């Protein structure tokens, strides 16, 4: 079955170049579950300053990386996330994309995704984005029922959300929608909502089990007894129901929380899981380039102050050695349906067999792939597996000085885009 508005999509393939992630930290209001880097205190001037600073950050990074400067690694996925990118004014959004394009060797067939929230994804925004080169939209649906949207503290109601989803599908070939498996959601309601999405032409669905992060309104409400988190058994049941509903609609799971129609995988996110390099730009963004992971200042004022001073706006960074890298590669691969290469693990035959017998994983073409049952215990399995990843001896270095400078000379030689000229 082909949904209205669907057109042939570029085939999914592993990213060869690099990715770029841009974080837009502004939201209309704060959702009750959210612990991301975001703020609802902003105005047009701050938004513009931040976009300009983000482009300035890219200039700083280009100055320090010959690879970037020479465009040696083409950018084949660009992802504008948030926060709420759809809150940016049309002109500002265009300036951002044009600015990025002018500074990056963006591949012709690059996947360009932008995240939207229903309340700010109007007709003009859709048209602006399409013209600016966005070819994939990821809409924060979370639910299509007013009660659940209320609980999650979403700015949009069900009708607005539905309209935004229709709009996204009308304007874009590739649409992804996020759902949250929130307390009180029934398997039946979830299946009906997914079916609506499928009928509209949504090609990609992310379904996240609700995380209870400290400091969020929802966690406070639970602590005060105003709402009751679902028991583990129920969460499991809803997750399993979500998967079978998606399967019935033709979506295939390819990661613990992601499923899509054939060929509709997120190339950008898949690159994260394959441990491909990506630049992270903007307040609170994370990046991984060379063997270096960094996190930018999440507070917009600190971010802007660093950029104004001509410094990289990094709150912390670390140079990953073999041990940390192997561990990351293993836990990232474990999330995916490709699984982990057994050569990377030092696990006894006995333990491998026990996991198969318990249906936590299957062994297939020399890879360990989690089953659905295994995905439900991924935390425990990751924790167990982390002791069995074959790693070299050395350890990672961490700098939390916030100055984004390299603390010592010997780490510089491992570091192609060093941030100091000392």
């Amino acid at each position, binding site marked *: 079955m082909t949904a209205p508005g669907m057109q042939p999509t570029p085939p999914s393939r592993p990213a060869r170049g690099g990715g770029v992630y841009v*974080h837009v930290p502004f939201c209309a209001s704060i959702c009750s579950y959210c612990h991301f880097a975001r703020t609802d205190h902003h105005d047009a001037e701050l938004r513009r300053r931040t976009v300009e600073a983000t482009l300035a950050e890219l200039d700083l990074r280009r100055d320090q990386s010959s690879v970037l400067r020479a465009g040696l690694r083409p950018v084949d996925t660009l992802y504008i996330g948030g926060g709420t990118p759809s809150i940016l004014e049309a002109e500002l959004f265009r300036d951002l994309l044009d600015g990025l394009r002018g500074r990056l060797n963006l591949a012709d067939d690059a996947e360009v995704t932008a995240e939207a929230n229903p309340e700010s994804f109007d007709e003009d925004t859709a048209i602006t984005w399409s013209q600016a080169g966005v070819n994939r939209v990821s809409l924060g649906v979370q639910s299509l029922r007013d009660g659940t949207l209320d609980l999650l503290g979403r700015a949009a109601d069900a009708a607005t959300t539905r309209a935004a989803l229709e709009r996204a599908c009308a304007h874009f070939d590739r649409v992804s929608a996020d759902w949250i498996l929130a307390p009180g959601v029934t398997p039946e309601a979830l299946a009906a909502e997914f079916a609506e999405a499928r009928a509209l032409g949504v090609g990609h669905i992310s379904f996240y089990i609700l995380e209870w992060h400290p400091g969020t309104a929802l966690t406070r409400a639970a602590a005060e007894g105003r709402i009751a988190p679902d028991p583990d058994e129920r969460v499991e049941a809803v997750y399993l129901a979500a998967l079978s509903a998606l399967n019935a609609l033709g979506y295939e799971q390819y990661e613990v*929380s992601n499923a899509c129609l054939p060929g509709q995988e997120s190339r950008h996110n898949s690159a994260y899981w394959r441990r491909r390099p990506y630049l*992270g730009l903007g307040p609170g963004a*994370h990046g991984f380039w060379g063997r270096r*992971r960094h996190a930018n200042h999440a507070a917009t004022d600190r971010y802007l102050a660093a950029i104004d001073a001509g410094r990289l706006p990094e709150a912390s960074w670390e140079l990953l050695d073999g041990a*940390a890298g192997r561990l990351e590669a293993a836990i990232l691969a474990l999330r995916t349906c490709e699984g982990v290469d057994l050569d990377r693990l030092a696990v006894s035959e006995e333990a491998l067999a026990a996991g198969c017998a318990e249906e936590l994983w299957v062994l297939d073409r020399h890879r360990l792939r989690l089953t659905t049952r295994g995905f*439900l215990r991924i935390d*425990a399995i*990751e924790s167990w597996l982390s*002791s069995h990843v074959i790693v070299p001896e050395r350890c990672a270095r961490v700098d939390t000085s916030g100055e984004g400078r390299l603390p010592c000379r010997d780490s510089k030689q491992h570091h192609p885009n060093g941030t100091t000229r000392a």
Partner: protein
Amino acid sequence: MDQYRNFCIIAHIDHGKSTLADRLLELTGTVIGKDRKAQVLDSMDLEQERGITIKSHPIRMEYAAQDGRTYTLNLIDTPGHVDFHYEVSRSLAACEGAILVVDAAQGIQAQTINNLYLAVEHNLTILPVINKIDLPAADPDAVTDQIVDLIGCDASEVIRVSAKTGEGVDALLEAIVAQVPPPAGDVKAQAQALIFDSIFDPYVGAVAYVRMMQGTIAKGQRIRLIQQQRDHEVGEIGWFRLSRVPRKELSAGEVGYIATGAKDVRHIRVGDTVTLVDDPCLEAMSGYSEAKPMVFSGFYPTDNDDYDNLKDALQKLQLNDAALTFEPEKSAALGFGFRCGFLGLLHLEIIQERLEREYDLNLIATLPNVEYEVVDKDGKILLVENPALMPPSQEITDVREPFVRLSVISPKEFIGAIIQITLERRGTQRKMEYIDTERVNIEFDLPLSELVVDYYDKLKSVTRGYASMDYEYTEHRAGNLIKLDIMINGEPVDALAFIVHRDKAHHWGMEICRKLKELIPRQMFQVAIQAAIGNRVIARTNVKAFRKNVTAKCYGGDISRKRKLLEKQKAGKRRMKQVGSVEIPQEAFMAVLKVER
């Protein structure tokens, strides 16, 4: 020889022995300026931290007394814990006097009495001292009465001091000179010296700490250790200040050291007698015995690659600790390790702590146990130090276990609780006597196995820390003992096996299963826990598989957070041991300690 005074200080733990030693060193000018610090003689970090003395630390002081003469005082600071009874007795044998220190607030405690008896046995002159008179809670009059009752001295003979402020310490020095008899012993007789401690020095080899009883030994002479039947040459001889001071010779009445060049401290046994090869004395000093381990535990590295490091570390510690024994041992569950023997629980703890701290080893220690005498069908006696190696019950006729004589001193209000916890542990009461109107001394016979498991902690908790205890091995006695096996996922875990009285087996089996269920974290798989006697399962429970899960979104590609969490968890797992597909934490091997009776 008239001006020598050899004495030791005996006290219950924490009654201020080491601080009093500090004051004596200061007042005699032995320690000045930069060397001044608290508890000078306790040189190991562990000794300073835990406030206990592990090795003897003799020191020689010169004291200008009020009578105008200068006296040489040899203080032998003795180990202050029940585990080191034998060492204490040898130190006492090297002295003519003992300062009996009693805390002005706490009064007489179990070790005070036992040490006192020991000193009296050695015919030492006792100088009773009440310490900590500066404390607000001090009640020196009441404590004086206790002391008068105990040793039958006159109240006026009890010296009151504050080792902390120095008050009264000068009077104590005068009393030492006036009351401790000078040593007897003929300088011209055949040389005879008592070894009261020994250490290993990497430069000069094993060093014997000696008291010259008679005769003279000089550098370069050939000496013989009578019990060990070994001859050595005196590489260095001398006496003690804060460090060793080489001399030409040591003569009757003196305390000092002899560097023997021996490669192994076990050849220089405490209690042995040193004489000269050319002109030997006829008799060895009486009272010699070899330190015998009473408590055993399997030490296993959590990381199997650390086996050789553990072996090296144990060898190094043994250089200075003749009482420590270890034998290689293999456990199906824990891999390769060592069955180690200790004088007691404190000795065990000290060794374990030093291995972890000084040698950076992560260890799994199995439940402490005692040595059983197992009599087989042919009447042969087999010594079993590891419960896992206990033969099947059909092959044996008798199991004997070590018993101790335990004395507990406590305020009278806790009598009921003390008797209860002791009877629950198969103790039998032998006697009870009032020390004064408030406090009693209760004696029990008790299996050592019950004592080493958790008795001391339990005693402290039911008496809110007011009780003190001391014990001494008496004999092995037959008991109706059986081995309880613990199985994880159907496989017996040898390191969890233990020996228990048959009447209690069922209760213990259920309780251990329950405790293990609490201690073994939820894992990927369900874990079955069973307790069994022979082939008969007597208790079982399950640890359910881990369910809770979060499919976290990789926000903005933030992978570091997850990785760091896993790295942290991994570090936390250093104390876990993989047994089959189950991860068992160190605490699980101690589960028996947490069982309610």
